[in-house]
């Protein structure tokens, strides 16, 4: 009886260890798979040309990913630029100022935003944001836009990123002991001074982590962006120009036109680039996080 019990214990532990190793290896497996399928194009074309050429003519064998890479960065940057201040202040209000009742009513609503399928954000973007920019914002600023643009995609993406950042930042702020706030308040600081100089400083590593999470989501978001960004394989000159981010390129074309030589390989290379960009971004932010933590504590 006793033996069996111990055996079960061992098996359970080993099995779970196996699962952990497997999921840890998944990233490498996926990366390797992508690399393997992207190899044909990498063998023929120099990597520098693939990454930095703006010429995208698959039928002629030109695969320049530069517009797509830049499009991805533009859309993500616009989204984060909008999302960070808004969601940070929302989270600060809910955590530091709001009455318990307001917080308990609002927080679930915000979490609900995260559960809305991205295709619905896409439709909403097409119906609301795109016309808004085409008919109002662009003429108001004296330029022309079809509405399908970096800015539209960025706005919709920002709204999709809101709940992620807000949720994490609220958690982070709640984890800061009240005594720390009291220490500042007891010195005669106002609430805003306390938030600005103490609470946000203490929460900085967590806030960075929240933003990273949001950025990662924005990088990879496909459906909504595909519907709104305009999908023109040209370098965007301003936020009112269309863009063609990597995820949209892959989702739009994979499975079609695969008779074109190297097209399949090129799209998998695009996936690999996207993966590397997101991974690289995560590593970079991890390094920043460690440095911040070391500096303040």
């Amino acid at each position, binding site marked *: 009886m006793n033996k069996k019990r111990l055996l079960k214990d061992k098996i359970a532990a080993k099995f779970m260890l196996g699962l952990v190793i497997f999921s840890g290896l998944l990233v490498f497996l996926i990366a390797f798979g992508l690399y393997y399928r992207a190899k044909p194009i990498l063998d023929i074309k120099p990597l520098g040309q693939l990454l930095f050429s703006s010429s995208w003519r698959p039928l002629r064998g030109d695969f320049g990913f530069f517009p797509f890479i830049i499009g991805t960065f533009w859309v993500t940057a616009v989204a984060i630029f909008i999302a960070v201040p808004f969601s940070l202040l929302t989270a600060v209000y809910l955590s530091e100022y709001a*009455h*318990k009742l307001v917080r308990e009513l609002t927080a679930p609503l915000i979490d609900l935003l995260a559960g809305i399928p991205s295709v619905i954000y896409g439709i909403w973007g097409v119906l609301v944001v795109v016309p808004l920019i085409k008919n109002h914002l662009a003429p108001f600023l004296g330029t022309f836009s079809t509405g399908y643009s970096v800015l539209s995609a960025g706005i919709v993406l920002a709204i999709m990123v809101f709940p992620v950042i807000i949720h994490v930042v609220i958690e982070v702020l709640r984890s800061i*002991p*009240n*005594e*720390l*706030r*009291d*220490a*500042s*308040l*007891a*010195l*005669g*600081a*106002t609430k805003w*001074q306390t938030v600005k*100089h*103490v609470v946000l*400083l*203490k929460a900085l590593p967590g806030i960075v982590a929240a933003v990273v999470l949001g950025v990662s989501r924005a990088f990879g978001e496909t459906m909504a962006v595909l519907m709104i960004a305009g999908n023109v394989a040209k370098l965007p000159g301003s936020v009112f120009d269309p863009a063609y981010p990597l995820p949209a390129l892959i989702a739009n074309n994979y499975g079609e036109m695969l008779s074109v030589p190297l097209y399949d390989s090129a799209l998998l290379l695009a996936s690999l680039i996207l993966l590397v960009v997101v991974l690289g971004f995560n590593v970079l932010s991890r390094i920043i996080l460690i440095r911040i933590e070391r*500096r*303040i*504590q």
Partner: protein
Amino acid sequence: MELKTHISVNNLSVFYGNEPALKNVTVDIPDKKITVIIGPSGCGKTTLLKSFNRMLEAVEGIKISGAVLVDGENIFDPGIEITGVRKKMGLLSQRPYPLPMSIYDNVAYGPRIHGLKKKKELDRIVEHYLKESSLWEEVKDRLYTPASKLSIGQQQRLCLARGLAVEPEIILGDEPTSALDPKSSQRIEARFLELKKDYTIVVVTHILRQARRLADYVIFLYLGELIEHGPANQIFDNPKQEMTREYIQGVIS
């Protein structure tokens, strides 16, 4: 002995929801003396202390009635500015909570939020109050390192310096040595005995021996009620109430 009153508590009652924490407490706290609030845990010691600098109000569902007069002004008056009340008092909590910044910035924090910007003046203040809390010698070479790197005893002295830097009249200590080792506790106590020349000090403690070492004046609370208060020697040697005697002798705790 005739004592000048600094803080005057009138009919103060505090409720957490429907739970009474203080019932009709009326007591005068003497100027430039160490007043020690004693009593078993949960008797309202900390609540009384925190009512002095209005730190209770952040607690949700709290109800406060009565008055606390500091320098003759009721701090609960609607016209009173809360930051001004708090600036008059330095608070030492049970565990030190250094702000997430350098040692220097911790001490300079108070003066800065009250509008002082001159570097020279800040330097002087930081040095002065770190000396005042007898921490200067230990940290003068690493003022710009994070305060969290200090030992917990040093952190508590840093918190004292931080509190003194806003030039309060009163120091409030909420069991300020409970997280410290005996040596560090002794240093804090020594500071208090020194500082009472210039400040009114109110300390909450559940350590009777500490109360004996520090107190000029004693307030004894039991289950939210003020049982007895008076000069230390009277309370410790000749208490009028049976309950006080039992608590002092350790029959109840």
